[in-house]
């Protein structure tokens, strides 16, 4: 095969029929307010852990809906509560993070 100096990126297609959204459903059960998230990104803008682990509550919610692993992002969260304070929709993001960490299940082959 000819070397063009670059490779093709791995497909980032997500088949929603195949992903495990159990944690997402659990989250909706624990913090139903999540449905009100309008993805404004205030939480991402203020996050203390963003430089450390790319943490962003907005992205976490997004990723969960698509069954993407959130463990790396959450690992840097310091629970400082800034995201809760700035959320214009009044979502208790701090409790959301704690619940996710509590009910997280390690998945095989994801």
């Amino acid at each position, binding site marked *: 095969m000819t070397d063009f100096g670059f490779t093709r990126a791995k497909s980032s297609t997500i088949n929603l029929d195949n992903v495990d959204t159990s944690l997402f459903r659990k989250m909706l059960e624990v913090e139903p307010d999540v449905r009100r998230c309008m993805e404004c990104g205030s939480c991402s803008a203020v996050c*203390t852990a963003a430089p450390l*682990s790319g943490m962003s509550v907005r992205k976490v919610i997004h990723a969960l809906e698509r069954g993407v692993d959130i463990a790396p992002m959450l690992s840097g*969260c*310091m*629970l400082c509560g800034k995201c809760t304070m700035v959320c214009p929709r009044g979502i*208790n993001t701090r409790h959301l993070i704690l619940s996710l960490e509590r009910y997280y299940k390690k998945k095989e082959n994801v």
Partner: protein
Amino acid sequence: MRPDFHPFVIPFCAGMFFVLGYCFFGIFNIIFHLPRRDRRRFLVSLINPVTAWKNIRDIFLNCLIHVKLWKRNPLLGYMHSSIAFGWFMLIVLGHLEVFLYAPGHLSKFYYPIFFNFFVAKSEETIGGAVLFFLMDFFLLVVLSGITLAIIKRVRSLWFGMRRTTRPSVLDMVGMYSLWAIFPLRLLAEGFTAHISGGSFLIIPLNWMVRGFLGNEINMVPTWWAYSIALSVFMFVLPFTRYMHIPAEMLLIPLRNAGLCIRHPRKGFAKIQVLSCPGCGVCIDACPMSAKKANIKDTTVYLNRQIRRRNEKRIEEISDKCLMCGKCTAVCQVGVDGPVIRQAQRSLRKYALGKDYSAAVSPTPVGKAAVAYFAGCMTQLTPGISKAVESLLKKAGVDYTFIDREGGLCCGRPLMMAGRIKEARELMEKTREIILASECRTLLLSCPICYRIFKEEYDLEKEGIEVIHHSVYLYNLVQGGRLKPSRSDIHFVYHDPCELGRGSGIYEEPRKLLRTSAYLVEAAKNREESVCCSGSLGSLTLGFADRKELTEAALRNLTSDIPDAIATACPLCRSTFRRYSDIPVSDIAEVIDSRT
């Protein structure tokens, strides 16, 4: 002299053996469950004459006289001390009587309780008259306390208590039997007073009952009733709130030994839970009670649920609390609700751990004698850090702003969420940043940071003074380096929980505020200040749930109609700003605007 024994003493003896056995095993259990280091510390404190004396004094003043309660509410204080001290004196005098008049029977421990039945003594002897008088006097004292208790049950508001706990069924059994004990004793002694003697109370009663009821058939049944009432009380005691009577006697030495809670159910925490008298003072005090739905989440109910082992409710209550510490401040026996809750939270297992190994300061740390660490909350309220910086410049202080471009968290939010291990890991990283600044003074704007830096970081050992900006600015004003001018504005100062109750700083912010404005006080202030309800302590209280609580806190603050609110915490400032009709500013902003 009557016979030595009568079957009516059996219920009393059974109850007494039961309660003594229960308490004996309880003490053993609690001391056994203390961590080894704590246990040694406790046992050593018992033989240390200083703490031993303090134990005796505290037990006497708190368990019998209820000094703390007297200071808070004299009527309730009288009610409790009359029952506790009066009953204690009846027991002591009963033993004295036996010792003086029937020394041979001192070994029978039911003898002093039913002395008047077993021994017929005349009041001819002076000692007898004095003792009889004292016995009657203390019986009257106890009866007056019982009367107050009955009135309080019906009209608690007369005693200054808006809300009290709903007693459980067993509590009711215990309460009614306690109420019955002393009138029955009065009646029983009244029936026998013509044989066994008495004083101003039971002799006239004896004339009356004999006049009306005549025969002596009633004598034994009333003694039976008295013994049964005692027995019922003692059998239910371990399972009711009256367990606080023996438990507090162990709690005081444990506390004086300087122990702290390490497990929410065992050892020190257990004795605290058992010592809760269920009085419900914490219900009126708790900021969450502003919303009626939260009343069952106060510390008194936490203690009750822990005793009932209702795990679901224990978790709910523990997670909801704002951790403001007001229940501890008002508690008569010193139950530390927030610490029990934090210990409870720390039991929870999380499937996902934390990793702060790569955590560093985003920008290189500047070096100066004074390091200003704004903290996460102040970064959301840049007005405060700007004001502090401006004041530092005006005073000509050589400083460095460590987390101007963002930094790490102090670890207290993790700590309050019960994630102690992760908090320690993060604190180590933050500590490195602080030490890298080579500062001598660490200046903080956030009381949440202040408290943990003060309590857990051990920075004093490195020769670093940890100081909150309200104190630091006050020192600058005192030293003449800042000269604020006075305005006509009337400020009310809100004591942030972590700065006031948490760290004991009440005076400096007030004095600082007085240099540039007039100060009015809130209805409840200092130790009893009402939390703004923005606290990070609560894990489950949502945004909407907090609104009512913040509004209640604002009503408390503005009772004297101030022009503006000043506080010393960025979190309180943002929370109050949401709902306040009058301006809310940080103390640094107030001073900055006047210099």
